[in-house]
């Protein structure tokens, strides 16, 4: 992810909270999510100013200057559309990012004072386990309670 982010596109850093096909690249929660959020916003703003706007201008000039019927002309249309769509989607994604980063933090046990404590059942229920698997875990917990009693 770091290599792709540094060489291909800064957008790959979004993998930290995107849960690509349910997979998590992040092993712990952000200590300062707003720093990451701001970096992503600045990166997109920079991308709009230095990449998308010049591409839109260049390709619009190209489309007026050249004539239809070549692969270059088709590519100019494509890059123009992609630049417009991606600049809009990037801005829309800003508004989702804060919620996603908040959602992504671990849940505390009800009434737990330590920020390091996690509620295992919440984590399991929020993950991609099937209902049967969750039911099996719950059943096992019940059996454990009956066998060993509740911890004091």
């Amino acid at each position, binding site marked *: 992810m770091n290599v792709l982010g540094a060489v291909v596109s*800064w957008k790959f850093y*979004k993998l930290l909270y995107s849960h690509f096909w349910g997979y998590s690249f992040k092993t712990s929660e952000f200590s300062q999510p707003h720093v990451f959020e701001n970096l992503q916003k600045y990166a997109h703003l920079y991308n709009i100013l230095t990449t998308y706007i010049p591409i839109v201008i260049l390709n619009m000039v190209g489309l007026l200057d050249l004539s239809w019927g070549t*692969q270059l002309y*088709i590519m100019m249309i494509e*890059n123009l559309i992609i630049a417009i769509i991606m600049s809009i989607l990037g801005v829309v994604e800003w508004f989702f990012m804060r919620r996603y980063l908040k959602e992504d933090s671990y849940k505390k046990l009800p009434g737990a004072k330590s920020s390091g404590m996690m509620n295992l059942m919440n984590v399991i229920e*929020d993950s991609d386990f099937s209902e049967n698997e969750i039911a099996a875990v719950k059943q096992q917990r019940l059996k454990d309670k009956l066998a060993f009693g509740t911890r004091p």
Partner: protein
Amino acid sequence: MANYAATYCISEDSLDLKLVYFPFLVSMAILFVLSVLGARQKKKHKLLTNFVIMMGMLEHIAIISQIIMTFFFGTWRYAIVIILIWILHVVAQPLF
């Protein structure tokens, strides 16, 4: 026939390659479908975010393809500008 800049002649055969209509827009649609399927398969998969991530790679390829095409068709003015755009695009990656 003359190239676009009318600076030299090129063989018509070289331009007689079969046109591929909107390969990147088709790829974009495929990536969107992939992201939708991901969101359906895994509830944590963020549809929009993952689509933007996958598009990051496609944008890069699209810009490089346009650079190649500008050289292929001898449109140097466009080549210089698109290369500058690509450099600005690449330089920013390690900063963020």
